[in-house]
């Protein structure tokens, strides 16, 4: 399958355009919202800070959330590509497979019972939860006759998601204070995140981005089927473990900062494939950029849906993502 961007020059140009769009969107995300600000004020907030309301909002709220949105979007986009390639399942993504729910459950557990509060701890617990959920879903999906099939894996993931969601709910019922604190986070949101939270998680995410880009050549070989990949000299076990580890870092880290945000991971790789075809060396960077753009745009939308209040960005991504998800399913990738 070829994408609509044909040839390497066009693809490179597309990538540059994508980065430019991402930058423009981030600037818009800084300027737009309930409190009207202008581009001039945004620049002045850093060059000539005067302590005004607008400057404070820009420095403490808008800029951090725009950066967080971009970082989380990039991570979820890449995590989606890796999972879809690993499982050869077009609707694989951290949320459908329960990885987000797992990370969410572990973090809520930490908040309610262990008194965890720092973002650093959130991150490690998030990684742990993501790993546990991914491992369980994978084991469940490959149990029984016929081994691992896309459909079984999807169902197993949905069961894990339901499991962790109901356990989280159970904990929140007994603790009303935690409910108040955690509810907004559970819906997935990049609002009110401090820059220091991003800085805490960013190193891990950046390393995972780079490694994922390096893995993209291997993804191409793996996509031909495991037998072919082995005969091409790929150490498939090592490769699979490395890719799974990246998924866990990307998804767990994202959940730690922003809460479980759904549908970015499913939808983005499809857009990327539509643009550049089946070559993962291009799909991975494109998914990263598109994921970032999508999440920041969704976050801008979230400010306007129920003005003057703010909707969590996870709700907006679900609204955009569900119709697309249904379209993918109806297109009939699963024949049986």
């Amino acid at each position, binding site marked *: 399958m070829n994408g609509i961007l044909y040839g390497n020059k066009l693809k490179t140009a597309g990538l540059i355009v994508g980065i430019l769009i991402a930058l423009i969107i981030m600037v818009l995300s800084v300027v737009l919202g309930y409190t009207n600000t202008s581009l001039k004020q945004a620049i002045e907030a850093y060059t000539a800070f005067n302590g005004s309301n607008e400057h404070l909002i820009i420095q403490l709220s808008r800029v951090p959330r725009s950066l967080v949105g971009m970082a989380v979007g990039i991570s979820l986009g890449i995590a989606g590509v890796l999972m879809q390639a690993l499982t050869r399942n077009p609707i694989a993504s951290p949320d459908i497979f329960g990885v987000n729910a797992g990370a969410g459950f572990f973090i809520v557990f930490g908040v309610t019972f262990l008194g965890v509060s720092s973002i650093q701890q959130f991150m490690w617990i998030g990684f742990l939860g993501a790993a546990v959920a991914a491992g369980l879903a994978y084991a469940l999906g490959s149990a029984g006759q016929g081994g691992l099939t896309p459909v079984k894996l999807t169902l197993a993931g949905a069961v894990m998601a339901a*499991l962790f969601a109901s356990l989280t709910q159970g904990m929140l019922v007994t603790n009303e204070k935690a409910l108040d604190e955690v509810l907004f986070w559970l819906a997935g949101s990049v609002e009110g995140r401090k820059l220091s939270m991003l800085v805490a998680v960013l190193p891990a995410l950046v390393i995972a981005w780079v490694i994922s880009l390096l893995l993209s050549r291997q993804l191409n070989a793996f996509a031909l089927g495991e037998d072919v990949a082995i005969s091409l000299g790929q150490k498939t076990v090592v490769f699979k473990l490395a890719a799974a580890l990246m998924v866990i870092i990307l998804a767990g880290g994202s959940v730690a900062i922003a809460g479980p945000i759904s549908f970015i991971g499913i939808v983005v790789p499809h857009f990327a494939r539509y643009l550049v075809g089946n070559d993962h060396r291009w799909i991975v960077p494109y998914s990263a950029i598109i994921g970032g753009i999508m999440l920041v745009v969704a976050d801008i939308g979230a400010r306007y849906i129920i003005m003057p209040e703010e909707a969590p960005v996870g709700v907006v991504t679900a609204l955009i993502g569900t119709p697309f998800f249904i379209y993918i399913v109806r297109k009939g990738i*699963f024949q049986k």
Partner: protein
Amino acid sequence: MRKYWVLQRKSFSFLIDKKTTVSIIALTLAAIAAMLISIGVGDMYIAPWDVFNALIGTGLDINQLIITEFRLPRVLVAFIAGASLALSGAILQGIIRNPLASPDMIGITGGAGFAAVAFLTMFSDDSNNLLLSINYLPLFAFGGATIVAFLIYALAWKDGVTPIRLILIGIGLMALLQALTTLMMLMGPIYRASQATIWLTGTVYGTSWNEVKALLPWFIGLIPILVLLVRRLNIQGFGDDLTKGAGISVHRERFLLLMVCTALAGSAVAFAGAMGFVGLIGPHIARRISGSSFGGLFPASALIGGIMVVLADLAGRTLFSPLEVPAGVFTAAIGAPYFIYLLFKNQ
């Protein structure tokens, strides 16, 4: 000795599996025992014998009051809700031909949950008063479940509905509904949010005879339909082609079954909240006891689902007394690990 009793008349014949019959009788006794214990145990302990006396109207006045006014309706609603959820799960697993399906996963319960939370938040004013009577809540929940079921069916339709499309669309809608439910909870006051969370977890707290009266007709009315559909559901297990070969209109049948499944789940959720995992593991436990033929599976699932919720409610009332924990916490906390154990064991 033969495995079956044969019941044959001019116009019909039945094969009755002996082992299944025995296990269903045993399960019925267990269900009655669970209910009697649950009626007796609580803030005020009443011995089983006194419970029995009170039930037939010869007990002490105080026992009579506690039992008939408070505990009996609660236990009955718990049992019927559990039975309905497990039945609806058994039907769904039959339609989808996959043991991982359940009404909580494909959005039917989610639709009810969303409607209920929307009701709680949209019809409450600034001082936390509900503008409509709380009695309308079940109606909303049931409506939500039905609308979602139709949506799933319509969206999965493309020259007929395949089981796999049905469940994938359901999973997608479930994710959307979860997001919308959270949105609703955020829009309303926090007091409503915590009320909604309890409801979403599933509880039979404070049920009276009104709930029993509203719930029972659904349950009793749907059973004859199930009895008629059982045989043909068995054939569906062999795949669409064979079912068609046996002269059954697959799509009409599937639609009918989905509607029965929705009505059962919707009515249960409407009165007892979104009790998790009963629909998923009720049928699993039943399958181990009575085999996978639906004739035995349905009654066994219903009984086990009922027992599960009755015991979960008992645990919720007594373990952390005086704090009341919603029964749904226990069905999920016990159901989920058990489910994982089952799957690994069947490997």
